[in-house]
């Protein structure tokens, strides 16, 4: 379990330069376990890494929004997002896991399952 103090330090170390609300949501999720906050963290990190992000927050887009076709997400963006999420939440994803993820909802659900210790099924 990550403590609130650890989360605050990780926010300082690893989210420097990211929009402040991502750090706020991250700390809130660690403190309270509210998965809506987790969604905001994952999608906020993804949005920050997109070369051409949409003007509106990803969290406000339909969950069926496609990562590659609709958002122009490339493999480097996915890996950057993955690395940061792994560091923030102390999880490890396999090399090819995210290759099967195609939408925003699938992405968030994949991380949620890892964080809760469930085994993600093929999506």
């Amino acid at each position, binding site marked *: 379990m990550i403590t609130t103090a650890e989360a605050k330090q990780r926010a300082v170390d*690893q*989210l*420097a*330069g*990211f929009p402040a609300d991502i750090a706020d949501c991250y700390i809130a999720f660690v403190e309270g376990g509210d998965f809506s906050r987790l969604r905001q963290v994952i999608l906020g990190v993804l949005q*920050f*890494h*997109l*070369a051409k992000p949409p003007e509106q927050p990803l969290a406000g887009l339909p969950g069926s929004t496609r990562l590659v076709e609709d958002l122009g997400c490339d*493999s*480097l963006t996915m*890996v*950057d997002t993955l*690395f940061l999420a*792994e560091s923030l939440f102390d999880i*490890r994803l396999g090399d090819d896991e995210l290759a099967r993820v195609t939408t925003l909802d699938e992405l968030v659900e994949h991380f949620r399952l890892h964080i809760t210790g469930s085994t993600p099924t093929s999506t």
Partner: protein
Amino acid sequence: MANPRVVISGVGFITSIGNDRATVSGSLRELKSGIERFDFLPGVELPIAVAGTIKDFDTRALHWAGWRWPAEYSITKDLLRGLPPHGLHAICAVEQVIRDARLTVADLTDEDTGLFCGSAGSPRLMRHYLNQIHESRGERIAPMAVVSTIAGTLNFNLAAHYGIRGAVAGFVSACASTTQAIGYAFDEITLGRQRRMLVVGGEDVSFESTYAFHGMRALSRNPDPARASRPFDQDRDGFVGTGGAAALLLEDAESARSRGAPIYAEMLGWGQSADGHSVASSDPDGRGLASAMRRALAAAHVAPANIGYVNAHATSTPVGDESEARALQTIFTAVGAHPPVSSTKALTGHSLSMAGIMETAFCALALTEEFIPGAANLENPDPACAGLDLPRTTLAQGPRLVLKNSSGFGGSNVCLVLRRWEP
């Protein structure tokens, strides 16, 4: 058919003494130092406490998301994620060159434009990424770990970003790297292979890039920023690290004139040599550097007596400066020539592979704006410098011919001859 005349038609600076041409020129004239106190390892008291810092940028964060730069530069995320800190500086310096030379980014994509660079890579980012790889037992490897850290990082990133299709190469002759890059860029143009060459150098200012030199006791332990870097002074005790980026455009003179670009100087020739002496220490008699100067002067068809200013390599190390003094005496004093000599590293610190291009661009400013930077911080010239003219203050006189010296590990020596532009 005669070889084309080669000119410097654009300059760009992100340096400890300024982030644009006007500020750099003012610092050189007024002998305004860019060196200040610097925490190489925050929270740890170290014997080395000063550096030539880059102002208005913040690249302390390991992730580019935490970096800050002046708002006038638009840097995209897909570019940032492959850059080391000095890569960000280099992009900004190149943007200055493009504007200064009255080029467009599209002009750089023709097959007549090449790119030569010098950089030692980013030891700080490399350490970070290698730690990640080790700690994760090989599971976590950042995709851009290689291209953002190894010695070719500048040429990789700049060539891709600007769509360069001419000759591209990186030079790794340590502190002679970018002077050598300029020399070979000159050859590319005179041999008719390229019409213009963008030459860029950069280095990080960090614990990992700089502090390792303390292992060979090459860094100044003087904590006073105003006196730590003092080339040719008898009390010098080592160099002060710096970095950032500098860039210039070498070009066929006709090409520059047809575009109405500013012409800062003409490059007449260059020469190089090796000491054949030591991996890390200069030949005490300066024989290698004297040989490089002799070759550069011969290639430029210039007599020593006609040189009006020497921008020395002198980094403020006891051995290196004395070696260069001996070489200068061999070439100049021995024939009764006494050109003013100064090392602008007294103001900037020593930027390693980037030093040559930064100081060549300083020489270009001196030629076009008609001044000679003084030998700052020089209080008691080393007796080994007998016979050398080391002006303590900036001279309001324009040299017509300038010699630029550089030396690097392994005894590499490179010298360039520049002339005031005479159409």
